């Protein structure tokens, strides 16, 4: 049982690590600000959720897991809010996205 949980948390942590780095690469590769935001959201969601889930499996049913849940919930609520505020501010400041299709 213990080995099973350990393996699962290994997989989760490794997956989180992978997605986190992929998002970082995306931050460098993507052509303009708005597409970079999508790359950032990969590290912010998949990387963060998988990593914290892996840590939760390690901690078991303790207060530590409760705190991890809070950290995760908090990040899940605030990070899209911050991203949205950023995108809106950029658009209002006149930074035009490079788009292939504009269906506004």
């Amino acid at each position, binding site marked *: 049982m213990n080995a099973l949980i350990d393996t699962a*948390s*290994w997989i989760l*942590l*490794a997956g*989180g*690590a*992978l997605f*986190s*780095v992929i*998002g*970082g*690469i995306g*931050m*460098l590769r993507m052509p303009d*600000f708005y597409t*970079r*935001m999508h790359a*950032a959201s990969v*590290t*912010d969601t998949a*990387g*963060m959720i998988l*990593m*914290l889930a*892996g*840590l939760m499996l*390690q*901690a078991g049913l303790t*207060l*530590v897991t409760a*705190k*991890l849940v*809070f*950290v995760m919930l*908090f*990040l899940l609520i*605030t*990070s899209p*809010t*911050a*991203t949205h*505020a*950023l995108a*809106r*501010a*950029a658009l*209002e*400041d006149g*930074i035009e996205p490079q788009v292939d299709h504009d269906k506004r």
Partner: protein
Amino acid sequence: MMFLVAIIAIVVTMLLILVRALLGPTVYDRILAINLFGTKTVLFVAVLGFLNGRPEFLDLGLIYALINFIGTVTVLKFMQYGDLGWEAASKEKPDV
């Protein structure tokens, strides 16, 4: 061992993000990168606790997340309104 892998990945991501923060080119790219770097520090502190075998100090991560969010939103508000946006908020139509 597995925490080590996680923390190395976080550090590498931090480095990539830092490069973007330095390159810019717009202010918003920098702010995006810095905000992302902040959430990475939250993860860093969380994994660090497990790496050192003392995971009780996750409150720190929670506080970091809070401060990072407040920092980003206040910066954006100041950039837009020049103050905390009280005047504009009372006049503009609410934007949800």
